[in-house]
């Protein structure tokens, strides 16, 4: 009984992901593409919830739907165009896209079918963050800290870029 509902939810969410992803690449207006992208990300978060990965779902919403899409919004705003109607003109190259997308799909499917999957068979723990956090700060502490340093470097780089523009503005 339970599985039937999960299947229905999965089909609905999968349809949402695929449908809105298709809209992202086919819509002519970049702003509409960004809004569809947000729907895609939220639907992916729903699929994570179906797999009992609640923390991952929240990260998906916060980082991708709330963060990355807002960055795209900045990019759209900085484009010096008054009309966004035809801002995405090269998205109807179906022959090339079918070839490339189909090729990648077949390749991934082939490898997925051939690989040996490791199935642990254990239940997903109820407290996902509680089991996840200690591993992150003991076993995988070096990759975790490297990622943190990378982000700090990116932030400092952005600050440097802004500063340079200011110095030029004062000089001229």
């Amino acid at each position: 009984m339970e599985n039937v509902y999960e299947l229905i939810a999965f089909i609905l969410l999968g349809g949402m992901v695929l449908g809105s992803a298709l809209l992202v690449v086919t819509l002519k207006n970049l702003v509409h593409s960004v809004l569809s992208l947000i729907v895609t990300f939220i639907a992916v978060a729903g699929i994570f919830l179906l797999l009992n990965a609640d923390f991952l779902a929240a990260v998906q919403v916060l980082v991708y739907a709330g963060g990355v899409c807002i960055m795209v919004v900045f990019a759209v705003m900085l484009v010096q165009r008054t009309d966004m109607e035809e801002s995405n003109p090269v998205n109807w190259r179906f022959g090339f896209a079918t070839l490339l997308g189909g090729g990648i799909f077949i390749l991934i499917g082939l490898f997925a079918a051939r690989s040996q999957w490791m199935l642990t068979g254990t239940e997903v723990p109820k407290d996902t963050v509680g089991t996840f956090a200690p591993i992150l700060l003991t076993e995988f502490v070096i990759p975790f800290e490297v990622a943190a340093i990378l982000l700090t470097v990116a932030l400092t780089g952005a600050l440097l870029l802004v500063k340079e523009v200011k110095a030029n503005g004062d000089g001229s």
Partner: protein
Amino acid sequence: MENIFVNAAGGIRNLLESAGLPSLVVDISIMTTIFVAILVFVLLNVLWLVYMERKVSAYIQCRIGPNRVGPMGIFQTIADTVKLISKEIIIPKNTNKKLFLLAPVMIFMPPMAVFAVTPFGKGMVALDLNIGVYYFVALASLSTVVIWMAGWTSNNKYSLLGSMRVVAQMVSYEVPLLLSIVGVVLLTGTMNLTGIITAQQSVWMIFLQPVAFLIYLIAAVAETNRTPFDLVEGESEIITGPFTEYSGMGFAFFFLAEYANVLLVSMLASILFLGGWLAPFGLTFIPSWIWLLLKVYLVIFLLMWFRWTYPRTRIDQMMAFCWKVLVPLAIVNIFVTGIGKYLYESVRW
């Protein structure tokens, strides 16, 4: 009195089960009842808050405020709502009609979704989520997109300026908001909202994390776009920004959603820092949900006090304050909290 709502939910469940309905139908109807109850609670509070804001502002400015409709003007908001419903919804010519009409509907979604995990009293929580705090932060970030959508589709230069300010302001102030909550999570060791409340049994978090409370309060004012950080609306410069082109109920929805957000951040402030539904001084004869409401209204009054006594800041001042003061302060707060917790656990005096 204490368990009036919990008993009511249990009573409905017993009634449905004794009627011989399958457990799935019972679960769905209980969830629907709880959701409708939360919706009614939020809408009633929002109606009251609009009236309260006008009264508080009137007293701060030595006026009387609304006093014609009903005793003390208490039905003023209802009269306003009736007026707004009867108005025509004007859709400007060069807008994207669907998105333009979708934005006011979607603005209520993020706050309503967060109310599903907030505890309203002892045992009164619709969904006791393990990552409650994180869920709040994640969904709060989505309001930005909706307001930006409203500003963009309006196709108006003031709306566009306002929506650019929304994106800049709300993305920046999310950072100190999140970092200030980390201090509380460090001390309580849980992200579950009920767990955070019960961890404050002996001492409220505001006494252990005063700096975090200040940072949270300032960031919350910015997140709800209220004065001194209401540059998004800025009536005197960009004519209420993203909401310029909206009329009738479209405008009313944005207006009411602002108060739903105020209620939400005040609720989170009282849960995270003021002990939630815990009674101070052992005054447990007053029910827990009344204590929570009292604390929430204390924080709301504080926010209204800010709004009517401080002038509006400039956008560069606001961004500089966020990145140069609040964020470093929040990071130092996390650092000090971590060291303090470690010392406390190793000394154990």
